[in-house]
């Protein structure tokens, strides 16, 4: 009996909090038919926003994946001073409000900031793609690290040492032993990183300047459409965002190792 109560409660909670709102977006997007929705997301402005979102993700996700793996290895296997501090700093993006992240980048690269001089040398960070990439990398940094660290701890070093005694060089050990062992964790970290990179609003909104057709990502576009009372366009673009997220999850399933548990 209590089993059913628990199940009902868990399911009800999910339905009310997640499925109903998202479902409504889908419903409203296709309210006036597929054609209307298609038209709304194929305007030049919408297409540019989509392109920009994908571009930013295409830079931020691989960068944070590589960095995340290296950092996780350093945190778990490394023996250096300040490891505890580094471990805490990695979580900073999770603790900070994205708007604060955006503001901090603004202060650093803006006029009078430490790196504000870059703009005078023709390197435009703020109100341009580089700043948006930086903001996205900042907020999506912890996901791969946080997924990989516990797995690295769990697998220990025996397999790696065994490979070493069998003649493998450090890079061969990493590629043939460590990487396959953490593959699932990396994949899951990539999914979370991608989702965050594509969906990021706050930090990107501050550094982008929200210039339509120039520095407007898909989430910014959704907000923009919503604020200018083009609700249909906002819903349709939201659906695109949701589909990208679902696509990421499904796509990465294919990369799951064929390992037998």
């Amino acid at each position, binding site marked *: 009996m209590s089993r059913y109560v628990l199940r009902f409660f868990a399911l009800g909670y999910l339905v009310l909090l997640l499925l109903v709102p998202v479902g409504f977006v889908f419903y409203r997007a296709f309210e006036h038919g597929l054609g209307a929705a298609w038209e709304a997301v194929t305007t030049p402005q919408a297409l540019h926003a989509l392109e920009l979102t994908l571009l930013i993700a295409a830079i931020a996700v691989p960068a944070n994946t590589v960095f995340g793996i290296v950092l996780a290895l350093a945190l778990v296997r490394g023996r250096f001073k300040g490891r505890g501090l580094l471990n805490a700093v990695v979580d900073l993006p999770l603790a900070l409000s994205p708007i604060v992240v955006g503001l901090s980048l603004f202060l650093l690269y803006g006029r009078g900031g430490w790196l504000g001089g870059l703009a005078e040398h023709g390197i435009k960070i703020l109100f341009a793609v580089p700043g948006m990439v930086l903001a996205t990398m900042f907020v999506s940094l912890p996901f791969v690290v946080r997924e990989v660290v516990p797995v690295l701890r769990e697998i220990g070093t*025996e*397999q790696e040492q*065994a490979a*070493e*005694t*069998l*003649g493998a060089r450090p890079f*061969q050990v990493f590629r043939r*032993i460590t990487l396959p062992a953490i593959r699932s964790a990396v994949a899951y970290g990539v999914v979370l990183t991608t989702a965050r990179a594509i969906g990021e609003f706050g930090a990107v909104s501050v550094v982008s300047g929200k210039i339509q057709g120039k520095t407007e990502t898909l989430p910014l576009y959704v907000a923009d459409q919503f604020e200018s009372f083009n609700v249909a366009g906002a819903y349709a673009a939201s659906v695109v965002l949701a589909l990208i997220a679902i696509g990421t999850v499904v796509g990465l399933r294919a990369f799951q190792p064929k390992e037998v*548990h």
Partner: protein
Amino acid sequence: MGISVVEVTKRYGDYPALRDVSVAIPEGSLTALLGPSGSGKSTLLRVIAGLEEPDAGQVLIGDEDVTATPARTRGVGMVFQHYAAFKHMTVEDNVAFGLTIRKKPKAEIRTRVHELLELVQLEGLAKRYPAQLSGGQRQRMALARALAVEPSVLLLDEPFGALDARVRKELRAWLRRLHDEVHVTTIIVTHDQEEAMEVAGQIVVLNDGRVEQVGSPRELYEQPANEFVMSFVGPVNRLGDTFVRPHDVELLLEPEGEGCAEAMVERVVHLGFEVRVELVREDGQHLTAQLTQEQAEQLELERGQIVYVRPSRETTFSAAARRPGRQRSG
């Protein structure tokens, strides 16, 4: 090839894991490093393997000083307590790993892997994953993997420690036979004196980072160098400054001859063929006697009964050999 460890010292921070250890392992032998946990036996093995760097001293394999040689080029095969199986590879790929790394021709690898799987009796399981094997099978796979690269030295770090008692016993006997077949110089680390005695031709007893004694199982048992070795290689009664093995305690119903002491039976434990009698002497000292079932039946031992104990053989150590962990010879 033989192995020489010369005056090796290893510290972990302030903790001395090995203190000036020297050991010679003859070529083709099966040597056990025996000691309690924290005695330095695993550290010594890892120093030989090249997985730990000694703070001082040298390691020689054959005539070559390998102290500065990395593990991957030392030509050692290593087997770990928890198998260290490559979980994402099949049994066959696990065994082939060292050969694949060395870029051997595919056909050669296949033949060699097949031979090895036959040697460790895993022929039918080549396509399985480690998770589908039992602990004993996984450890045999690990052994085949280590042997695949034709190591000059085989190092086993508590290889049967994670297995249940029955499988452990089987694998010990199997390892002994395997060694007779393969003849590679082998070192096995264990904390189990019975295992060391059963498997090894030579035993190195370690305690507190030092070598206490080196010898054959029989030498260690019959001529222990000091108190530590005496009490570590078998059960022992300590009566003042003398040591008596339980099977050297005679039980008599009447006092007879010299060295007899009155004692009360506290408990009689039947272990099959063997019967263990726990006693307390009139001076309050506790001791254990080991009898055969037949002897115990003749005496008709009961709890609370008064008997007379007489050590048929006892050992005393010089003052220098008395304190465990401080002395290397008695």
